[in-house]
């Protein structure tokens, strides 16, 4: 029988709460555009236009040339208010007059750009500026845009947390999205700011705020920077293997937490919709891939006993040896659904892995 390990609340909470999410104060990975995966930047994502690898002061120290009249590259950083409230930018660029290059600051990474920092025309001249950020925040999306047909090569955009930004007007983040930290200053764009052990968290519902035939469920993740949004969902709308907070979310009527208990704390345990509860005397178990990753719990797990139509999380659960459903991709760190690692919470400046574990919505053939 596959026995799940007991998750450690504190460890998981610390991992997903992003406390101290920098690399020795650096908020950006590969600020010098030195890491290239083939012709693509490894740490930066091209949103629009083209970005080419070009030499800078030395052929071995490349920069990125923004090619085209509408180009944007971005990197999401897990830096948060726990790291500091002042970010210092170092910049070296070769930008001619017919290019308009800007650094956009999108606090929370929710698409709302709070600050646009124009990058002046320069010829490899080092620039430095500081930006204070007000209130609680978690995560910043750094976006560099270029408009115009001119030449623009960026070589170094360092973002570092420093102590104190004197005499600058702070960036006021837009109200926090669901799943983001909040406080009295920031507020929440939707829902309410619910106080937890780790501080305020914007949630879309409470236990009593949902209509009939709805339940305040975990819902799907919206950003690696944020917790699950927790919104009202139709009762029984979740398949086997999906994350849940209440039995009512699951079509099976069981939200299994293993040996843990449900919690609303940020980074706290989520269950997953299962056919039985851990410890049930039916051979209740789950597909297990190591660590804390597991698929939905089913009776007679891995015993090849499941009759056709019965719930399964793995082919070994079925007498037929075939479990029909979709592969369950979820983040190693907290079990949230993911497509790639870019959807998973950060460990330092890196996203944690996204792994396949079990089958979601499976039934034995």
């Amino acid at each position, binding site marked *: 029988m596959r026995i799940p390990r007991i998750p450690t609340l504190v460890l998981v909470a610390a991992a997903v709460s992003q406390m101290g999410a920098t690399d*020795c104060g650096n908020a950006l990975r590969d600020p010098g555009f030195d890491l290239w995966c083939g012709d693509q930047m490894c740490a930066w994502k091209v949103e629009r236009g083209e970005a080419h690898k070009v030499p800078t002061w030395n052929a071995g120290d490349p920069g990125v040339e923004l090619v085209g009249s509408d180009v944007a590259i971005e990197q999401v950083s897990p830096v948060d208010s726990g790291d500091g409230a002042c970010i210092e930018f170092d910049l070296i660029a070769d930008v001619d007059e017919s290019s308009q290059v800007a650094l956009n600051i999108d606090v929370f990474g929710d698409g709302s750009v709070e600050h646009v920092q124009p990058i002046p025309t320069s010829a490899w001249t080092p620039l430095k500026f500081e930006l204070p950020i007000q209130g609680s925040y978690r995560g910043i999306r750094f976006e560099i845009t270029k408009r115009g047909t001119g030449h623009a090569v960026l070589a170094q955009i360092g973002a570092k947390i420093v102590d104190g930004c004197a005499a600058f007007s702070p960036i006021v983040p837009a109200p926090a999205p669901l799943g983001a930290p909040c406080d009295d200053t920031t507020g929440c764009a939707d829902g309410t700011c619910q106080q937890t052990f780790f501080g305020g968290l914007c949630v879309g519902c409470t236990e009593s705020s949902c209509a009939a035939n709805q339940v305040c469920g975990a819902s799907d993740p919206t950003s690696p920077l944020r917790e699950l949004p927790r919104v009202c969902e139709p009762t029984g709308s979740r398949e086997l293997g999906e994350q849940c907070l209440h039995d009512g979310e699951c079509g099976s009527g069981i939200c299994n937490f293993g040996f843990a208990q449900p919690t609303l704390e940020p980074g706290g345990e989520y269950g997953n919709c299962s056919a039985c509860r851990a410890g049930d005397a039916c051979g209740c178990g789950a597909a297990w891939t190591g660590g804390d990753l597991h698929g939905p719990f089913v009776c007679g797990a891995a015993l090849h006993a499941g009759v056709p139509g019965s719930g399964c999380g793995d082919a070994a659960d079925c007498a037929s040896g075939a479990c029909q459903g979709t592969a369950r991709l979820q983040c190693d760190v907290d079990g949230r659904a993911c497509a790639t690692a870019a959807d998973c919470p950060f460990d330092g400046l890196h996203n944690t892995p996204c792994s396949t574990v079990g089958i979601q919505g499976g039934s034995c053939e």
Partner: protein
Amino acid sequence: MRLLPLAALALAASWAPAHAEPVPAPAPAPAPAIATYAIVVGSNAGGPGQTDLRYAEDDARRVAAVLTELGGYPPEAVDVVVHPTPDQLRDRLAKLADRVRADAAAGRQARVFFYYSGHARAQGIDLGATELPLTELRERLFAIPAALTVVVLDACQSGAFSRIKGAQAAADFSFSSRQHLDATGVAVLASSSGSELSQESEQLKGSYFTHNLLVGLRGAGDANGDGQVSIDEAYRYAYHQTLLETAETAVGGQHVTFEADLKGHGEVPLSYPRAATAQIVLPASLEGKTLVEDRRAHAVAAEIYKAKGTAVRIAIAPGDYDVLVRDGHSLSRCPVTAPGELDLARCRREALVVETAKGGPGALQEPWQDPHRYMAVLDLLVGPEHHDGYTDNLAAFGYNEDLAPSGGFALTGLRQIYDRLWIGATAGWASIPSWKHDIVGTQNLAQQLDWSVAEVMATMRIEQGWWSWLAYFGQLSAGLGIGHSALEGADHMTYASTNFGPAFAAAIGLRVHFGHAGFAAGWQYDGAYAVKDLIGNTHAAGGNRLVLGFSWGF
């Protein structure tokens, strides 16, 4: 010793050249019927068991020069024979004898001057590995039917402190010379007495005897101020000066001998310094031990004691000279151009260092006496690397400099070209501290710049003594710098480049020397604009350096 008979005067008078200006009495013009010939022999090579001499051949050349400049000998009549074999010397003597016989047949009188400087043994002169017996030399000289024959022998061998001529101390060379060459119409000047050795001087770059003989012939020996130097005056001057200068050497005092058997009356002039094309006139007010140094050759041209009250003319080749005058404990250096008169107002005083172990009483010493004219210097350099726009750019790109200093070496070859001035060339190499840039967000992934610079430069050094073994120096170098950089990128590829640019170095320091070896310590600031990046920055590789050097003089 027999002195010059007065009977030789009439014959001697006929030596004066036509352009001579006798002072105070007019010198007679040479009779056209007199033919003059000289054979001047120099041989540095030592025979079996003998060390090669350093200056015998140079002495011969100097004697020939004085004979033509001041002695009335036409250049074509002076046969300079350097490092001959016995057969070659026999051949020269035989040809000379034929010419003199031909002159005699034509009714012309002839006079012959024979000079030899080199090694000798008791029975002969050493011409390299082969000896020419003295008896044969005597017979061949006697066989020349000249009216007057002057023989000057300076035969020496090197010794422990000064160079010593005459390989065997027991050899009574000058006695032997006198015994066999005493004859009518023959005068012999020998560099030392029969029981003495003759010596060379490193400082004079010649033998004591020949040096003093030539200084006397250039005018210092003109005791009666008549504008010409007789053989008697030359002997007296050479005798006293050589004895003075050799008295405290390790070998001991050297007595010049003179033997003559001449018929006639009056003196026999050997040179006419008054008639020289260039002279240095030492003013009447000057007093002290005086040394005339050829500034270009860095060699002593004359050395006399100048008494107060009478001007002295030193016949000398045209050119620039320094006259060093020692008076008591002071030393004055006076620049003068020949022909010309010494201007005491242009003299500047210098510190005086007297070496007591050699050189003899009254010998002038430079404050800093490094006898070597060539020097090889190996310097080790260490110091912080200079920061400039290039390194500022590296810092802006996120690179951090290693804590280690720059370090390297330089090899310099120098040649002394004038007094305190040395010139040469320097080749050097230095490693520059690496700059490293950790890639943020990665583990153990970094970019590192390793670089170095090489330099090839022309070098000029001025070195001035503080003490006999300690000097301070300043040195300037300029030339080509070759910068090499290699960046190991995040992709683990190495991007190397080499650039060229101007380089310079300026240094000051102290140097001590003990014999050939020397040690120096100092400070240097250097830069080689030879490391360039792709965005227009150039690094002047270098900076402040502590220099520790080892030198070798030769």
